[in-house]
């Protein structure tokens, strides 16, 4: 699978992110990946970065970053476009700049 994954526990159904080596809820280790892209949630908060600790990001500043609470439970840190504000309904997708990363888009 390409792109970040959520993990679903086969024993209890708990969904978690970032990837762990055990289920956060029941400690089982039978965890199945499912794509994070397509997952829906609510934007909890966003920031606009004007400073990065890595030179490779400096040409991209300012850069929108946010916290999304997925309907399935987990909290995801991802890129957030300028137009979205806290409380917005969003869907995760692959980031344009890097398909290994996630970006939030408004739900139509």
């Amino acid at each position, binding site marked *: 699978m390409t792109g970040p994954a959520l993990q679903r526990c086969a024993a209890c159904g708990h969904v978690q992110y970032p990837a762990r080596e055990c289920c956060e809820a029941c400690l089982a280790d039978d965890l199945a990946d499912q794509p994070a892209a397509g997952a829906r949630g609510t934007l909890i908060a966003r*920031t606009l970065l004007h400073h990065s*600790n890595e030179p490779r990001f400096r040409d991209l500043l300012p850069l929108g970053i946010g*916290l999304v609470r997925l309907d399935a439970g987990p*909290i995801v840190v991802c890129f957030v476009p300028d137009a979205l504000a806290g409380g917005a309904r969003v869907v995760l997708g692959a980031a344009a700049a890097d398909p290994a990363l996630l970006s939030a888009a408004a739900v139509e």
Partner: protein
Amino acid sequence: MQDYRDIVACVPVTVPYARRSEHGAAWFLARALAALLDGSGLNKAAIDGLCLSSFTLAPDTAVAFTQHAGMSPRFLEFLPIGGACGVVALRRAARAVQAGDADVVACIAGDTANATSFRDLLAQFSRFSREAVYPYGAGGPNASFALITAAYMQRHGATRADFGRLCVAQRANAAHNPAALLRAPLSLDDYLAARPIAEPLHLYDCVMPCAGADGFLVMHRARAAALGLRGVRILAAIERYNAFPDDPVQLRGGWAMDRDALWAQAGIGPAAIDLVQTYDDYPVISLLQLEDLGFCGKGEGAAFVRQHDLTFAGSFPHNTGGGQLSAGQAGAAGGMLGLVEALRQLAGTAGARQVARARHALVSGFGMINYDRGLASAACVLAA
């Protein structure tokens, strides 16, 4: 919980902070240890317990430091837990002395800083951060605390000026602390006009990483008295990890879980506290501590800051040495800064910033943004 009767903390020391250093972390930790010997009159062999906190000591840990510094302690704790390390070291050391596992415990925290050390630390800070936060713009703690600050402002109606009042008061305190790196006067207008770093955070909301170390000793009260040292008593202490994991964003910390136990053990309440040292890597976290520890209600932190003078001579002396926001954040030493300041205040040795009639202090710690929130919280109540 058993009390901490007859155990004292004493000899607060600070190895001068510096914006950058060519020395390694072990140099700062060794200077702190030497200062503890100077301040106590003890020789190195008398230190039979060690609690050590550092990030940049890596790949070494506390056990390597015993050989580095030629010590043979019979009690050892490595506490790489950032902003909670001071209170947690105090707890560990006090229990070890109570149990007879050590007679005199040196608690030291320190780090170095150079052009790449801070970035290296952030890039590898934790597995979750490395995989799922740092690739998103590498904002480091500025980005994490910006999200918490934004959520707090939205939930509770706090404004930038509310955070600014706290930062300005701390800078006023720092003017009386020769060890603080940032002592130039700061006005609320200066604060509000600063450049954005990670909105809503601007320059003066963010701690400045630096090099340095802090430390103190823990021993039996009778031992301190025999040495002629002014000991500070421990009335109560708490720690908690990964509190409220189901909260979508961190608007409260572990203090809210344990504060009733803290005050019950202390036998006094918030109203009896003469000075407070919160962990202030960003001002919103100080407001969370004031709320969660019961100095005001949830969401009332901004109003509390508006209603009080937070300088050392004011109605609510807070971060009386300037806190990390003005002293600098010397890595793990940031978790000990508030504790050594409280020890000085309660011993009456805080110099030009001495709080009048300082009898009871609260010190709280917070640390380790593993992913989206700080996982460690701790607090203690101390008495002169």
